[in-house]
Structure formats: C-alpha cells, structure tokens
C-alpha cells in the first residue's frame, strides 16, 4: 500500500530542466579547455579540475552527475583519483569516463574495476564525447527526478499516517474484500489487539458481521465489534471506499457506540413514557369530556321538564282564573309566564349549542349550503314575512358538515339580521368566494350594526348587547361560532364602511375528513 505522490508534473518538469554538474579533470590546461569547448553546447554546469586532488575536493562539495577523468596525471593519476572518489559516500555511484591515449587491456580492466562506465580515447572526437556525456546527463536527471518523487511520496505517506494516527476513531484500511492493510493506534486501544498482528488478517476478526461496501459512497452502519478478549460492543462503522492504481480500498472508521446506544435506549424509554402519559391524559380527558357532554345534555334536558310544567300551569292558572284576579295579580302571573318562557328559550339554545359539539366527523357529509339557507328561511318564515325582510343568496359551495348545524348557522345569522334591524326594511345578502384554499362566506345586512369594540364579545356564550323581553338568548352567535369551529373554520365580524353588519366565516377548501 503506497500513498500517492503529491509532486505534480509541473514541478518534475522544472527538476528535469535544471542543469546538472559535470566535472572535467585533466592536468593539461589546454586539453581541459578543449573539453570545455566541446561540452559547452550541452548547456550544463561544467566544473574544471587540473589535478586529482582538486577533483576530490569538488566531489566533496558538489553533487556531480558525471566525471571525465584523464588517466595520466602527475602526483595522483586518474585511477588513484577514481579509487578515492569511489570511497566517498556522496560520489560512490557517480559515473566516471576515463580519458586516455593508450589502448591497453590492463588499463581497461583496472578502470572498469574502479567503476568506470566508459573509456574515451584521445584524440577526442567531439560528437562522440557529446553524445556519451548527454547520456549521463539524462541518467542523472532521471535519477534526480526519481529521488524527488520518492521523497515526495515518503512525505505524503508520513502526512497520511499522521492524519490516521490523529483520528479520534479506530481507523482501518482494508482491501476491497476486507484484508487489513493498515490500522492506527486507536485500533489497539479499542480492540485490545496489537495492530501489527492484524495486518493481512481479515477485518472480520474485529467486526464479525462486516460485509464489503459497494459503490463509491460513504456508508454508515451499526455492527458489533469484538475485542481480543472476546467481549463485544456496539460499533458505529463509517466506510469510505476509494480507488488507487493498486486497486480499490476501504477506509473504515470504527467508534465505540456503547454510550450512543445507551442514550438512544434512554430516549426511546423517555418517548415511550411520554406516549404512555399522553395516552393516559387523553383517556382521562376523553372520559371527562364524555362525562361533561352527558352532564350538559342531561342538565339541559332535565331542566326543560320542570320549566315546561311551570309554563303550562301558569297558562292554565291564567286561563282558569280569568276575570277573578285583580289587575296587579294578573301582572304578577304575566311575569311568571314571561320568565318561564325565557328560561325555556335559553335552555333550548343551550341544547342547540350542545348539539353542535355532538356533530362529530363521523356524521359529516357534503352539505349544499344553498339548500341549508332555504331550510333556514323556511324555519324563519314567520319573522321574514312579518318584517318584510329580503334575503338574497348567491350560489354557495358544498361544505363538509351536518345539515342540521349548517341550517342552524344560517338560521341564526338571518334571524339576528332581522332581529337587529334598523328602521329600514331588512335586506340580507349571503355570498361566498374562493380565495387561495378557503371558501369565505359573507352575510351582510343593513341593520343597526355592532359597535367594533364588541366584535369579539358577541361570540361569547349568553352574551347580549340588549336587554328587555325581546332580547335574544345571547346564544345565537355563540352557536354560529361553535358550528364554524366544529367544521374547522373561523368566524369574524368584518369592518364594513356601510351601515349594518358584515359577518364572515371561512372553511378550508378541503376540511378535515
């Protein structure tokens, strides 16, 4: 497993263009200059030495690509110089070309023994010298490039290992089929293994249920990790496949998920507890709602009975005592009848209000609102005729609900409009329009209007704005609000520059089933 070299082609091109150093050694100054002149066109850095000693000194300080060495020199000849050059570390592998005037086998053998790569015989043929030296220049450049590449690779690999070691998780790099190539020190800590023993073993010795991951995507999974002592722990596994020229590999990060699992279990437990409490609370509320509903129903019904009797008997008494009571006594009997009638009326309104709550979704169907308005008007025929009211109704949509409560809604709105009329003949306009996703209904009249400060108040239970025996029950708009809200809508009194009242209510286009 090698880390990919980070050196770019560009930097390698610069390296290969750099001139290399060539060392020319000859005791004959003229011959040396002649060599220099021949090699000048190669555009390399030429270093000149007139003795073996000088050549050795230059070899110590410079990285020489190739040495051209004259064999016959005073004091230290070429072979002696070559022997010393070879003995030095920096120049041990530097190629040496010997220059000689004699072709003797003895010299050749000695020269090759000392690491000569070639012999050139004087007189020098410039083209031959140039081409031989060019080869060494190329070799040196290639070697230099390879060395830089190797350094780069080593540096990258070092960085990579540093990153691997610094990772907070146990990191394992495996071949595509799970053979461990590399592991960081966290693997030792997490699994209690000596990681050097893990190399070339299968990752299943750490994670028995490991399976290869396909594709190029990072995958997360929860598997079981097994420590060297055989104990296991929940492991969060993140696998990241990648490709190199050596094939496909998988980087796998392994984290001990024991705490996470515990936390998750705790959260689940808390959620279950919460659900149980909500269910309990809902059951309690449902029970108390049902109890309340039954109570309200029974109360309004049972209260009707005695008041009906009081009503009948006060009428009976008035009838049978006709002409025998004083004016004052008749007045008193009148008050009893009026109040009994009022209580009867209030209880009736309360029953209607309760009936709205009874209209559960299970009883809903599509209701034709125009038909509901017709029914409401027919129920109100008496007061409509008596007041001369004109009711105009535009085409209305169908809405989900029950006929009985929608009739109640329109009936209360129309009767309110008539009851609170001005001195003008009552005129009521009912229309509906679809905006965005809701149907908005408008019921407009030319009556006395509602003071803006009472716009909320009038929707309250038993809330009235007028006193006296002709006053309403204070339940009319409360029932309207209950109906609209029961059907998932809202109702409000809109501001209207014209005299009278504009009541709007809207239903979502597709009410809850």
């Amino acid at each position, binding site marked *: 497993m090698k880390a990919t070299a980070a050196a770019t082609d560009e930097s390698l091109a610069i390296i290969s263009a750099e001139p290399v150093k060539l060392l020319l050694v000859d005791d004959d100054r003229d011959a040396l200059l002649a060599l220099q002149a021949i090699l000048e066109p190669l555009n390399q850095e030429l270093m000149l030495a007139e003795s073996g000693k000088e050549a050795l000194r230059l070899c110590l300080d410079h990285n020489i690509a190739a040495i051209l060495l004259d064999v016959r020199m005073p004091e230290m000849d070429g072979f002696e110089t070559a022997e010393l050059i070879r003995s030095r570390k920096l120049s041990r592998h530097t190629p040496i070309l010997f220059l000689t005037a004699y072709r003797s086998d003895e010299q050749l053998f000695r020269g090759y023994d000392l690491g000569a790569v070639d012999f050139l015989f004087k007189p020098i043929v410039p083209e031959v010298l140039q081409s031989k030296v060019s080869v060494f220049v190329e070799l040196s450049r290639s070697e230099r490039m390879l060395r830089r590449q190797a350094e780069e690779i080593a540096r990258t690999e070092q960085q990579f290992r540093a990153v691997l070691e610094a990772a907070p998780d146990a990191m394992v790099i495996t071949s595509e089929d799970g053979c461990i190539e590399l592991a960081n020190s966290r693997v030792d800590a997490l699994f209690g293994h000596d990681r050097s023993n893990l190399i070339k073993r299968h990752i299943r010795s750490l994670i028995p249920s490991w399976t290869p991951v396909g594709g190029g995507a990072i995958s997360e999974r929860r598997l079981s990790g097994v420590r060297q002592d055989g104990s296991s722990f929940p492991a969060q596994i993140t696998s990241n496949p990648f490709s190199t020229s050596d094939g496909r590999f998988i980087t796998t990060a392994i984290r001990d998920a024991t705490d996470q699992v515990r936390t998750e279990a705790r959260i689940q437990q808390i959620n279950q507890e919460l659900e149980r409490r909500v269910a309990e609370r809902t059951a309690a509320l449902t029970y108390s709602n049902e109890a309340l509903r039954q109570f309200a129903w029974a109360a309004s*019904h*049972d209260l009707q009975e005695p008041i*009906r*009797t009081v*009503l009948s008997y006060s009428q009976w008494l008035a009838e049978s005592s006709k002409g025998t009571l004083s004016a004052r006594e008749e007045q008193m009997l009148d008050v009893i009848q009026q109040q009994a009638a009022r209580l009867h009326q209030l209880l009736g309104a309360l*029953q209607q209000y309760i009936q709205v709550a009874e209209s559960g979704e299970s009883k809903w169907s599509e209701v034709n609102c125009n038909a509901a308005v017709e029914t409401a008007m027919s129920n109100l025929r008496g007061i409509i005729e008596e007041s001369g009211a004109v009711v105009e109704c535009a085409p209305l949509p169908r809405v989900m609900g029950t006929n009985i409560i929608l009739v109640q809604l329109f009936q209360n709105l129309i009767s309110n409009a008539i009851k609170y009329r001005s001195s003008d003949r009552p005129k009521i306009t009912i229309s509906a329009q679809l905006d965005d996703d809701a149907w908005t209904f408008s019921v407009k009249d030319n009556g006395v209007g509602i003071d803006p400060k009472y716009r909320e108040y009038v929707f309250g239970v038993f809330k009235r704005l007028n006193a006296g025996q002709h006053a309403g029950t204070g339940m009319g708009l409360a029932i309207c609000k209950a109906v609209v809200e029961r059907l998932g809508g809202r109702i409000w009194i809109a501001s209207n520059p014209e005299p009278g009242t504009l009541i709007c209510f809207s239903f979502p286009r597709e009410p809850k089933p």
Partner: protein
Amino acid sequence: MSRSKILLAEDNAADVWLIEEALRRQSLDVEIENYTTAEDAINAIQRCGVESASVPDLILLDYNLPTGHGGEVLAAAASNPHLAAVPKAILSSFMRPDESERMLGLGACCFIPKPPSLHEFLTVVGKQVNTLLSQAVSK
C-alpha cells in the same frame, strides 16, 4: 262500548294531570293506570293478560323515568305476547335522533311531544291519544 284503559308510565304528577285534562277536553272516558317508576311499570306490563289481569288499550310511556327509561319498559312490553296488538307510544319533550330510532326498533308506534304551551299540549296529546285509542278499538 266498555271504558278504555291506558297504561301510563309517567313520574311527573303535573303531566299526569295535564294528560287527564287533555283527555277530558277530548270527551274521552278513559281509565288511566299510572306507574311512576320504570320498575313498577315493567312489573305491571309483565302481568298484563296473565291469569285474569286485563290488557290495556294503549301504553303511554314517558321517556325519562326513575329507575330506568322508556326503552326498558318498551322492551318488557315487546316480550309480552298479550300486548302485541296494543299500540305503545313514547311521550317526550325532546329526544335525540339516535334514541328515537332505537325506540322505533323496540316497537314504539309513535312519539307524542310535550309542547311547552298549555294549549298545544292539551291539543296534541288529546288528539293523538284519541286517534290511537280509536285505532285500537276498531281492531
């Protein structure tokens, strides 16, 4: 023509008095056998036609009764074969629609309301009872 007999289950004495007044104004000579609890009414209904006990011409049941409701009394009447031909009417000021359906299923022939106005009460109750009795007698 023998005197008609009505088995009435009604706990409110004021209503019994009103019913009697309604029948009087219809000029009906009727014997009313009144029970004020569901239990008493059921016992009486189970005895009807057994041995020498008589069978009423009409059964009138108030819906709300102490110790039970009209439905239970109606069920008892339905299980007495001697009462199969006797019309059974429910008296009530107001009934939930699902309840009234149940009553019809248990053999009620009709509902007689108790209107809050005296005049209406006397007229409605008197006329309906008169009609039911004349149907029962003609059979």
